[in-house]
Each structure stands twice: as structure tokens, then as C-alpha cells.
């Protein structure tokens, strides 16, 4: 599975848009890109998933360029409650779909 690289930490302020970019240079044809959020003392929570182009749901957008070697998670108008660790993962569902977590990006939202 492709290794992912993302910033270790990011700071933002309430109301700002936050973009977290992840690189996955060795992504394979069958791989999906998925993002999870984790708060302290909780299990990870699914945010968004895509294969190519742009995906949007009620909480975030995911931008994937044509070569799929990177992806950007966009969180619009963050609030203090968005302070969490965000994980970018590459998943191969047709081979069991296990998630290989990296260190994630620790996002701190300040008032």
C-alpha cells in the first residue's frame, strides 16, 4: 500500500478554511483515498473518501488531482471543536481493505 505523508501539525483560527495536503506518490489503480478524524479518547471517525476529482459532503471537501499522487482535505470555517488529529489513508478494498495509519496531522483551532 502507498505510504502517505502529511504535515505533523497545523494551527488555524475559528472561521478560517483549513486545507491539509497529503502525498501518496505510489498510489495504485485500485486504491481509494480516505480521511479520518480522531479526538482524544475516541476511535477514528470517517470524514470523506474519493477516488479521483472532487468529492464534497456536509463536513468537508476532498480534492484529488488527475495523477492522484496527492489529495487535499478542505475544512470550511473551522470551529474549536474541529481540533483533532486528521489521518490521510490509501485503502485497497479489493484486498481486504485494511487501513494503514500514519502519524496524522494534529490540527489546533484557536479562538
Amino acid at each position, binding site marked *: 500500500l502507498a505510504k502517505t505523508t502529511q504535515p505533523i501539525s497545523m494551527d488555524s483560527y475559528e472561521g478560517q478554511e483549513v486545507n491539509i495536503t497529503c502525498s501518496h506518490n505510489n498510489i495504485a489503480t485500485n486504491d481509494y483515498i480516505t480521511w479520518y478524524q480522531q479526538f482524544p479518547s*475516541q*476511535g477514528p471517525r470517517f470524514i470523506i473518501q474519493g477516488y479521483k476529482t472532487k468529492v464534497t459532503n456536509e463536513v468537508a471537501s476532498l480534492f484529488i488531482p488527475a495523477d492522484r499522487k496527492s489529495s487535499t482535505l478542505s475544512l470550511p470555517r473551522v470551529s474549536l471543536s474541529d481540533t483533532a488529529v486528521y489521518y490521510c489513508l490509501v485503502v485497497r*478494498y479489493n484486498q*481486504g481493505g*485494511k*487501513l*494503514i495509519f500514519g502519524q496524522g496531522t494534529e490540527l489546533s483551532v484557536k479562538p
Partner: protein
Amino acid sequence: GAGVSQSPSNKVTEKGKDVELRCDPISGHTALYWYRQSLGQGLEFLIYFQGNSAPDKSGLPSDRFSAERTGGSVSTLTIQRTQQEDSAVYLCASSSQGAPENGYTFGSGTRLTVV
């Protein structure tokens, strides 16, 4: 149930004792995964079930660790002769087969402390 349920939520055990951790996946979810997260460490894959079969056990750290799943539902992770390095949060996740639109649902975990 509405979510993935894990029990107990906290477990303190003495070194050398055996422990069993339980995971109740979402009803109808055929895939079930166990992970662990040590203090300050990332999430580490342990084992994957599809139905009652475990096609991928590659993450189990030693032969002291085993897991089973019965009836395509409840799974139990057993750690024999616990060691202090086994102290961690053990997380379970479940999903429907294939590429689930809404990803995997994780439980809140079992915090295991070996003293």
C-alpha cells in the same frame, strides 16, 4: 446496534494474566478489524475478519495474541500472559463489504493497562 460496541471500556490486569476484549460490530457488517493505539503512537493494524474467517492476521504482534469471530458478528481478541508493553487502547472497526461509501465505523476502544 447503532454503532460498534466494545467492552470493557477499561481493563486493568496484572502482568502474566490473560485478558479478553470484545467487539460487537454494526449489524450486517461483514468486515471487522482490530487495531491498537499505544500512548503517543499511531494506530497499528492487528487482524481483519471477513465473516468468521481471518484472511489477514499479519499485524498480531506475537503468538500471545489471538482473535476469533463467531456467527459473523461478535469478535473476541485474547491476549495471553499479558506484558506491560501490551498496554494500549484496542480499537475495533466494522464495515460492509467492498468499498463502503461511509468508510469504517470504529468503536470507542478498550483501554488496557497491564501493571
